């Protein structure tokens, strides 16, 4: 039983960052109809920026995470402005090809800049774990979870309680009508992509110090984000949140009780189950697109 509880706790903590990744991707898909293949690279970018600020420049750990997120916003806005804005109105396959090209270029630029050697990041938390009854968890993971939940909460507040969020939801439902009502759809697209990129960079910045940073970590992150988004239904934010935690749980239990070699295969098994039994995803709201 303690073992099971420990798995549940690990799943919860992992799920928080997965949910961040999934929400960013699903927002971009829902509002822009773009399958964002650079999502994993923004995750890698966030992790490398924290490495750069903490380990190279010696900036404060927490400030580095915020800086990485800010740079994620800038990079996201740049990608949207250069690659996606000229293609607005193009079909989904065209933008997918462009994003794949950007993915490959970005990943190899990272490899070129940082070499293929995995890097670790120091963090200021005590190494002794937090022990609650029979389970324990390291302090850095507690921080990662708390920060991820905070960001998810901020996302919900942004979307449901601000004018910007209202404009985003309007664009989500009907782009043309939103534009007629005076919503600056171009600006919403840039902001959405920048915000989704920020969440991906945050996930990378948070998990970088927990694991190691290497140029290819983004591949698995992107695949997992895709799995989460399919699980929750393309374009659904509650779905992506729940999907993140479901994937975290599936991976933990799969690695704990089946085989740790297949940990990363769990996402695909979930996709198959979802597609066979409920192809529209767990949260098949009527706002779902795709």
């Amino acid at each position, binding site marked *: 039983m303690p073992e099971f509880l420990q798995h549940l706790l690990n799943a919860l903590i992992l799920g928080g960052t997965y949910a961040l990744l999934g929400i960013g991707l699903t927002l971009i898909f829902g509002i822009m109809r773009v399958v964002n293949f650079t999502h994993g690279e923004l995750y890698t970018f966030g992790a490398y920026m924290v490495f750069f600020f903490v380990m190279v420049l010696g900036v404060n750990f927490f400030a580095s995470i915020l800086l990485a997120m800010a740079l994620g916003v800038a990079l996201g806005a740049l990608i949207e402005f250069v690659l996606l804005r000229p293609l607005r109105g193009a079909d989904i396959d065209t933008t997918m090809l462009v994003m794949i090209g950007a993915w490959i*270029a970005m990943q190899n*630029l990272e490899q*070129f800049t940082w070499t293929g050697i995995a890097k670790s990041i120091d963090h200021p938390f005590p190494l002794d774990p937090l022990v609650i009854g029979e389970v324990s968890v390291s302090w850095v993971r507690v921080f990662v979870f708390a920060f991820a939940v905070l960001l998810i909460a901020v996302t919900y507040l942004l979307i449901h309680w601000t004018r910007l969020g209202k404009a985003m939801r309007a664009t989500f439902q009907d782009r043309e009508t939103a534009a007629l009502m005076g919503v600056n759809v171009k600006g919403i697209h840039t902001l959405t992509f920048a915000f989704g990129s920020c969440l991906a960079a945050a996930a990378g910045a948070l998990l970088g110090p927990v694991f190691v940073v290497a140029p290819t970590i983004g*591949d698995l992150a992107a695949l997992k984000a895709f799995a989460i988004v399919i699980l929750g239904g393309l374009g659904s934010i509650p779905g992506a949140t729940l999907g993140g935690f479901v994937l975290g749980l599936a991976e933990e239990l799969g690695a704990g009780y089946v085989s740790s070699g297949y940990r990363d295969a769990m996402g695909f098994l979930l996709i198959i189950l979802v597609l066979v039994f409920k192809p529209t995803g767990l949260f098949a709201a009527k706002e779902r697109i795709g």
Partner: protein
Amino acid sequence: MRHAVTAAWVVFLFSIPLWMTDLYILHILISAGIFTIAAISLNLLLGYTGQLSLGHVAFFGIGAYTSALVSLGFDLELTDSYTFVFAPWPVWIAFIAGIAAAGLFGWLIGKIAFKVRGAYFVIVTISFAEVVRLISLNWVDLTEGPMALNNIPPFGVAIPGLWEQTFYQKLPNYYLILVVAIVCYIVVRRLVRSRAGRAMIGLRENEALASSVGVDVTRYLVLATVISAAMAGAAGGLYTHYIRIVDPDIFLFIYTVTMVIMVVTGGKGTTAGPVVGGLLFGILPEVLREFASPEVQWVIYGVFMIAVVFFLPQGIVPAVTSWWKARFAAPEGGLGTPEGAR
């Protein structure tokens, strides 16, 4: 006129080893040929049905692994007391088995993924390739994992008791791959001009309209996936018996991207497109290798892919064809016109 051009091409390709004796260049051509077959198979899905399969390397790898395992033989400890022993089979039968296995997985993936379209299919295929890679890495009893399968027998031909030839050399492999490539080219060409092909193009152009006139959309999508996967499996089999070693790196996503770049650059939805793209991107890396490290090469590829989508969205072959037509007013239905293009 068109037949003459095609015949000239075939004669030229067959004649290359006669005047090109440099084995390194022959090796590059063989590799380019294998990738061209894979690109032809991807084009059937991407170009004609409009479905982007980003897990195509999985079918390639399944073909390669199946063919290698059947020709090598393997044993699996199913229970403590019972071990399943699979004796080695002749290479040609292994090759067919690889094609069949890849086709079977294509059917399975098609059945699952085409319940929903577009982005879902892309994501399912991409995850599928990743899972197959993980299996090849972790199921060490069967695949040897990262230690790779070695000493895979090459192809060979024999007249029993009289004469035999095993394809250790590059020359017979070159001809073998050329023949298979031509067969694949003809299969795709005939298929897309048949009733089934018109159905596929119809649903690419307007799925709602196609199904309203009675095209069984899912059936044709699955059919295209099976044929495409089987062809990719054939390419994998050719690869495995030529290189004679296969490891989980065969499933790297970067190979799928290479195939996609080949098809998109050459011209998706044209029969000649993947051949042009395949040869171009099969040979280009060897040229670039002199100037650029692998990372820089891949950055160039990525940027190139974006540039093609922006500036040459139809690909090279349609661009050249329309230029040719405008210049010479050639007979209708040129080699590179996208089938059913508006």
